[in-house]
């Protein structure tokens, strides 16, 4: 109907039009559709879907789709219960021929992107809210729950409402010491935690074009903190070159139509953007770094799916080179994947970090969700590269979490207080 007509589709409409089960090939914001995702990921934190699927007694998993089962939220297991969940996942993967990301390989979203699995225009569902990270490669990552996943594993389909779309355009050049993380915090502070509720957020513009896939990952990743259903970072030669390398072949580009309809259309200039910090207890409580400078910290954490990549480890190593972590501060570093870990060892970044006093954790989510490996005590303050600073997220409800870029976190680890990373750069 709309395919050949005058209706211009957003990214989300195009993907859902392509994947809708009835084959009509159209999709408009607000419609309820039955869709057939191209891929899915299931995690240890929501492994319930595997149990439910087995209860149904079916042989085929996700007919027509591909499934990954991954252990990252509590890897290695911190309790007998968790260990049993991991054992269940391994049995499930072996029985059904599902690809397994086992303990120690890293954070699922990072592994998916490193392997070049998400392709422009694909629909990928996952039982984790940061599944929308795959927007960094132009895929429609849609976070779903365990029951959605059970339905997908059983039938290869799920229901979905076609979201409205927001377009965020960025121009200008980032100053040294300012990163994609600071851009996303700027937009999050502007739009708030429900500013893009139920929407698909499209990131575009020259300043987005200038970012590596690693930094584009952060834009897509934190879009969920604005309430978004999915995120899309413009597909350009950076995307296609990355995928040619990671996946061994260059996929076709996939872009929204010119003139599609956006319920939010904002423009930002990043030329004079300073490093940004989200203060407790909401990721939208964003301030320029100088407004929080001097807050004393107990822990600095570099990791999570919003960071922990080789580029982040490199920035931190550059800041810690020839310096020490401040006395009384714990600097925890969890590489996002074993690949990033190994590359950081080979490049000497790991040695720089450890000799400066940092603690390297196994690849995985680490203390991000307050499950293990670095939970916070009552009254403690942490600065983290993560995406959520809700009260109690990393342990005690009486602790405080600030969110910032890898550079700001590393600079703060050195100072023992929240610090502006630009003072450590270019020297």
């Amino acid at each position, binding site marked *: 109907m709309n395919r050949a007509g005058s209706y211009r589709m957003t990214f989300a409409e195009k993907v859902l039009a392509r994947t809708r089960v009835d084959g009509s090939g159209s999709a408009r914001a607000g419609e309820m559709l039955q869709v057939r995702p191209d891929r899915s990921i299931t995690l240890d934190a929501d492994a319930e879907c595997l149990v439910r699927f087995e209860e149904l007694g079916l042989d085929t998993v996700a007919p027509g789709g591909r499934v990954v089962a991954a252990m990252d939220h509590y890897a290695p297991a911190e309790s007998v219960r968790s260990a049993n969940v991991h054992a269940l996942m391994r049995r499930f993967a072996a029985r059904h021929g599902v690809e397994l990301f086992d303990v120690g390989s890293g954070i699922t979203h990072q592994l998916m992107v490193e392997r070049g699995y998400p392709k422009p225009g694909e629909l990928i569902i996952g039982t984790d809210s940061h599944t929308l990270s795959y927007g960094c490669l132009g895929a429609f990552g849609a976070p779903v729950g365990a*029951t959605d996943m059970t339905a997908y594993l059983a039938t290869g389909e799920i229901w979905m409402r076609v979201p409205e779309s927001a377009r965020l355009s960025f121009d200008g050049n980032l100053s040294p010491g300012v990163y994609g993380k600071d851009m996303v915090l700027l937009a999050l502070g502007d739009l708030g935690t429900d500013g893009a509720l139920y929407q698909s957020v499209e990131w575009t513009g020259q300043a987005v074009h200038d970012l590596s896939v690693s930094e584009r990952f952060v834009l897509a990743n934190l879009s969920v903190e604005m309430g978004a259903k999915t995120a899309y970072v413009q597909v350009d030669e950076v995307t296609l070159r990355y995928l040619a390398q990671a996946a061994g072949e260059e996929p076709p580009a996939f872009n929204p139509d010119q003139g599609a309809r956006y319920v939010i259309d904002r423009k930002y200039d990043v030329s004079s953007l300073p490093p940004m910090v989200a203060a407790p207890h909401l990721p939208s409580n964003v301030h320029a770094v100088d407004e929080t400078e001097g807050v004393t910290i107990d822990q600095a954490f570099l990791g999570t799916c919003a960071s922990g990549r080789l580029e982040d480890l490199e920035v931190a190593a550059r800041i810690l080179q020839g310096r020490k972590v401040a006395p009384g501060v714990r600097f925890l570093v969890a590489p996002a994947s074993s690949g990033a870990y190994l590359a950081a060892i080979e490049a000497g970044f790991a040695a720089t970090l450890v000799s400066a006093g940092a603690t390297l954790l196994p690849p995985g989510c680490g203390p991000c969700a307050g499950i293990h490996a670095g939970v916070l005590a009552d009254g403690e303050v942490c600065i983290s590269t993560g995406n959520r600073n809700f009260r109690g997220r990393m342990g005690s409800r009486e602790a405080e979490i600030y969110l910032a870029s890898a550079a700001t976190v590393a600079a703060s680890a050195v100072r023992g207080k929240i610090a502006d990373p630009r003072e450590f750069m270019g020297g």
Partner: protein
Amino acid sequence: MKDVARNRQGTLRETGKVHLLGDDINTDYIIPAVYLCLYEPEELGRHVLEGLGPEYPARLEGVRFVFAGRNFGSGSAREQAPNALLGAGIRGVVAQSFGRIFYRNSINVGLPVIECPDAVAAVEEGEEATIDLTGSVILLGTRRFAFAPFPPNVQEIILAGGIMPLLKEKLGR
């Protein structure tokens, strides 16, 4: 596996006590991540809203409905959040707006989630409310608050007590 949602099949109208919460009640507050290796609604219900304070599971005793401000259930994809509410005996959540994953998860497990800012503005803590899903109306004493009816596919899922019963029926299991 026992499933609270499944027992609710066909429930169209319920009456009970309201507990009122504020804005941005995220899923980390509804069920902290340390409980993510639990699945049973009853078990999760024992820790419901513990992210707001250890007194919470007890505070919800006898409560049937949670009313809340903006963006209720924002954050993580954990289906343990609506299941914890179901396990604690909650039979409906009314809010100004919902986090989207929580919203779909709730529908999928058969927990009615209703956007109705006017009812939230009017309700008092501890008041008795009636939620009528077929009539798309909330009653607070003599005051009536209409809400947008669910799309037919969503209505079907909620009334069946979630997707699992429908799926089993469809697959003949």
